[in-house]
Every structure is written in C-alpha cells, then in structure tokens.
C-alpha cells in the first residue's frame, strides 16, 4: 500500500516537473493577480496593507483552482485511471497520493512565495509570516475540496468551469478563516490562535471528506 502510494506520488511529481505542469503555471498566475491589484487600486499603501491578506488569499484560491480540472481528467483521457483502479491499495490511497502531489506542486510554492508577493501589497513582516503560516495550513483544505470536484468532472470534456462553480462555495469557510487569521496577526481584538486553529481543523476535515468523496466520485463515474 505504501509502495503504491509512493510510486504514484513520485510519478505525479515527475510529471509536474516534466511538462512544466500546473505548479509553475499556478505560481505565475498567483503573481499576476497580486501584481494587478495595486495597479487597479492605486498607490495607497495603507489601503493595500489592510486588504493585502485578502488579496493574497483570493489569489491563492484561484491559483489552486486553475490546474485542478486536470487532476483526474489527464489520467482519465490516456487510460491511466483504469490502471490506477487495479491498484492493490484502496482508491482512497490513490486519491490521497494524487492530491498530496498536487498540493506539493501548487499549494506549497504559493505559501513559500507569499512573503515576496507580500512586498507588492505592503505587508508588514509579521503579516508576511502570518500569510505563510495560514497558506501553509489552509491550502490543503482548498486542494482536498477541489479534488472532489475534479473527480466529479473528470469525464467531462470542458469540466474546468463546472468544477469552479461546484467547489468555490465550499471554499468560502477556508477563505474566511484564512483571511481572519492573517488579519488577527496584524492586530485586532481576536487572538491569532482562534481562527488559525479553526483553519487547521478545516484542512483536517477536508482531508478526510475530500479523499473519501473523490474516491466515491471516481468509483461511480462511468
């Protein structure tokens, strides 16, 4: 079971590196959105630093979404999904390996890049640190929720839009607590730990529900 998990994880990481896959694209997309906002709002540093966490979080959410439709669709198209069904490990393990690989090439780089992009929206050093922490524990929730949508739309030819419509509402709680945790770190009445712990809880719940849900969707699909 561990062997299958590791083999699939390594394969997906290789593929992401090889095709110049969704990881790099997501990161560039993230950079684009965060760069565009100051142009749109004008050089008001106070305003920017106040809404900075929200901008970074929305950008991270969209960047996670952008490559998600290919998560299972690519395997569906070339028949690899049929091979994955023959695994000695349960389908849940297969889903988990794919989602972890996807997070490692999209979510993790976003969290690591957050301090540099924080400069563009005039975040304070504590703010940058808080962004890294919240993105690090919050993006897994986005990826796992998205995986259910990706599994449901895997056999649709242009599933990307439907995927976004399906999963965006379920990403709202993560967005709320991610932004409020980052804001709490910048000052305010609530302590940082309260929304941050809820964010961790959301990620853990999404990890379970997302894995089981996506596997169920793949089983029933076709």
């Amino acid at each position: 079971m561990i062997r299958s998990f590791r083999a699939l994880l390594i394969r997906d990481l290789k593929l992401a590196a090889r095709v110049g896959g969704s990881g790099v694209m997501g990161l560039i997309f993230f950079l684009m959105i965060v760069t565009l906002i100051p142009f749109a709002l004008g050089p008001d540093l106070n305003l920017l630093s106040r809404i900075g966490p929200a901008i970074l979080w929305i950008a991270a959410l969209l960047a996670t979404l952008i490559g998600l439709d290919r998560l299972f669709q690519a395997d569906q198209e070339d028949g690899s999904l049929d091979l994955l069904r023959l695994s000695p490990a349960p389908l849940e393990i297969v889903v988990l390996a794919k989602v972890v690989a996807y997070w490692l090439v999209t979510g993790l780089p976003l969290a690591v890049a957050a301090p540099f992009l924080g400069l563009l929206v005039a975040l304070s050093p504590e703010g940058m640190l808080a962004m890294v922490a919240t993105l690090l524990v919050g993006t897994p929730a986005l990826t796992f929720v998205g995986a259910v949508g990706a599994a449901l739309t895997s056999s649709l030819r242009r599933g990307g839009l439907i995927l976004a419509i399906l999963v965006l509402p379920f990403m709202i709680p993560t967005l709320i607590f991610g932004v409020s945790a980052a804001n709490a770190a910048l000052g305010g009445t609530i302590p940082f730990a309260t929304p941050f712990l809820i964010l961790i809880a959301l990620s853990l719940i999404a990890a379970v529900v997302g894995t089981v849900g996506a596997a169920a969707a793949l089983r029933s699909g076709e």
Partner: protein
Amino acid sequence: MRGLRLSVNNLACDRGERRIFEGVSFTLQPSEALVITGRNGAGKSSLLDILAGRLHPAAGAILFSEAGERTLAECLHYVGHRDALKAALTAEENLAFARDFLGNPALKPGEALDAVGLAHAARLPVAYLSAGQRRRVALARLLVAKRPLWLLDEPTSALDTASQETLRLLLESHRENGGMIAATTHSPLFLTDAKEIRIERSPSAAILPGDGA
C-alpha cells in the same frame, strides 16, 4: 495461482438504458484463454470493462474463487484501447511506475522492454513513440508485475506481424505458467485450444419500440 477460477454467469450490460448484451456465461481456469469476438459495438470492450471493474453489470454475477484475500481487480492486468502511458515519461519510467504501483514485481522494466523488442526505446519519452511502439510498451506492462488474469482489448491493433508473433509467444508462455487470458479481437490470435465466445447484440434491444436507430 493454482485453483483460481473465474466464472461469469448470465452477465448483462446496459449502456445508457440500452441493453447491449445479456446471457453471457463462461468460466476460465488456469492456463485457459478466452477469445471474445463479435461485431463492432456488440459490447466486447464493455464485457472487459465489467471484468476490470470499470462498469457495473446490469445483471448476472462474476465469481472469482480461490484467490485468497485478493480481489479480482488486484489479480488482473488490463490493456485497453488507451495505452495508459504518460507521454511525458520515458518508456522505462512508465514501466517502473507500473511495477512499483501494481505490486508483485516480476521483470525489470529494461527486461520487459527487451521482451517486446523495444530495448532501444527505453529512454525515449513515450510521446516520441509510434502507435505500435506505444502498444508494445503497454503490453510490456503485463510482464513487470505478476498477475494471473490478463484482460486484453484488441491487443494486436497497431502491431506489425513480427510483434503479433511476439505477443502470441508472450500469451502462450503466460498460459504455460498457469495464467488466464481473456482477449477481444477481430483478427485471429492463433492461440492453441482457446475458448471462444461470440457476443451478439441482445435481441430485445434490437426490437425496442420507438428505437430510432
């Protein structure tokens, strides 16, 4: 592998509320091969899909006995129309993944490619290979993990005559080692003593009232 037995009883298949075939029964025991024939659209691939667990049968039962704790899906190889190869990875990497992922490793990727005559292409990305070569890489996957039942959907398509002969020898040696094979085909596979079933469009579907087709 001794004593394994796959029995299929009165299997029926529906696609989109249309009955494609019904009443398909057969048994497979070690060293036996089953050749499934029938016209285009008769449901040959659907039968293999049901056996591989991709489709649910509309009626009937599949019994797989004496396999211990392993499920049917863990005991079979499936090579379908789509080769299940990642174009960006090399032939060797594709096989190495299948070997680690499927468990029960047998031949090393290099040896398996050698067996299908593609040793020279081991380090080429699959995207650069021709359709026939890709098919041979997919068939090499049968050799990297040891599994008793091979489900092959049109295994000879895109293969040249020399490769078809290589495939025949691979299939025969799998049977000599107690393996089972179920293959759909239009062209003869020249397997010795293979069982054959012909899948026909079920009559009830053909005379369905109001059926525009």
